[in-house]
């Protein structure tokens, strides 16, 4: 019967089984998680839960709901560690993508509709796009802020409303009073522009 995993080199696997986890890579952490090592999940939590929480809270504007999302995201990696593929991105980006998807699901559910309407009113009142409080690394914050700032206003607003507001592009079109097709293509061109600014030549940002 088959048994050996054959995944990765022996060293990380040995570390994952009984090594010290505070120094190891995220990929090794996930292997250790798949071996039922709770302290590996605790370490992944220590490294990434703050970011996951901040994103959920930004989307949901509700700390208690954001905590629910954090729980879901970490229980999911615990129960289904094989869904994370370290070849396709970092653990941080995987967890954030999970968090964003779940947060958007919650936002779009019927029960949160009213809260969301109130939140949109508040968002309009607050206005602005404040990244300084949002981004861990100041130099990265600066670069992202710069890159966002360099976008045409409609692209910046469309991306912000879609990603941080959890709105569909159709809703964004309503909010900005623009044709749907325009919003759709502005989001795309804006993301392409950001990508060439942030990830482009010799400027690579790693999460």
């Amino acid at each position, binding site marked *: 019967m088959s048994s050996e995993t054959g995944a990765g080199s022996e060293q990380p696997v040995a570390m994952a089984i009984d090594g010290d986890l505070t120094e190891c890579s995220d990929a090794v952490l996930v292997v250790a998680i798949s071996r039922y090592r709770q302290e590996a999940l605790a370490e992944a939590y220590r490294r990434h839960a703050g*970011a996951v929480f901040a994103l959920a809270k930004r989307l949901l504007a509700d700390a208690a709901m954001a905590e629910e999302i954090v*729980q879901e995201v970490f229980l999911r990696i615990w*129960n289904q560690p094989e869904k994370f593929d370290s070849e396709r991105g970092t653990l941080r980006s995987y967890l954030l993508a999970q968090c964003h998807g779940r947060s958007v699901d919650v936002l779009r559910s019927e029960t949160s509709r009213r809260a969301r309407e109130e939140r949109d009113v508040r968002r309009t009142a607050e206005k602005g796009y404040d990244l300084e409080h949002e981004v861990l690394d100041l130099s*990265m914050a600066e670069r992202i802020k710069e890159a966002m700032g360099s976008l045409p206003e409609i692209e910046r607003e469309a991306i912000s409303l*879609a990603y941080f507001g959890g709105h569909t592009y159709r809703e964004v079109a309503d909010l900005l009073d623009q044709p749907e097709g325009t919003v759709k293509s502005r*989001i795309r061109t804006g993301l*392409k522009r950001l*990508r060439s600014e942030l*990830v482009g030549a010799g400027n690579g940002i790693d*999460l």
Partner: protein
Amino acid sequence: MRPLAHDEIEEVLGAYALNAVDSDEAALVEQHLEGCPRCRSEVAGHREVATLLGNTGGDAPAGLWDRISVQLEESPPPMRLDLPGALGTITPLAPRRRERSNRIVAVALGAAAALAIGVLGAQVVRQQDQLDRFEAAIEDGSLLSAANVALRDPEATKVELTSADGTVSVTAVVLSDGTGYLMANELPGLEGGRTYQLWGQTSTGLISLGLLGGAPGAILPFEGGTDLAALAVTAEEAGGVVQSENPAVVVGELG
């Protein structure tokens, strides 16, 4: 909705990567992505940018980790069945999960054949709905009442058979004369042509105690003898096998 052409899909890839399309449109995009590496790569690029925007700092709320940790599926305890020396011993290996990592406890039963007792992965698909289970229970009414009588017998031993990840659990009751009942209401349905098979660990080795069929809700009466030490259920081809090569779906020890 009609399928969209490549250039129509392309236009929406940015919004799709930000989860900013409704579910119908998302399904159309996903359908297209399956066959279009270029669009897949564009979506991956957009997602990378989105993650940069969403990669924010800050601390997680105090106390949240404690709430998560109490919900963690426990690591399955190493299973030990005391096999008679002549038949070999059970060696628990390091726990492993899922396709490439299922926890396997190898049972050395001699060179000819071995029964591997392991666990079912967490992704067991429970295909049969509650109605099926209910109907099965009604059909098994007489057995059910016999099993219930056995459960109330103060001399009887109740055994919980569980998968190592704890997601599947079934109950068996063994009377002092070795008669027992397995109530397999929690076992997920099997595809056609498959059956569950109950095994008992006795002083003469692992013996087959009977077949349950592949539908959930079955109650299987069995004769386990008076030296029954443990029970295990495997999934086999219809008709059952003399010696199983398959991992156990659930396992439980007596007393």
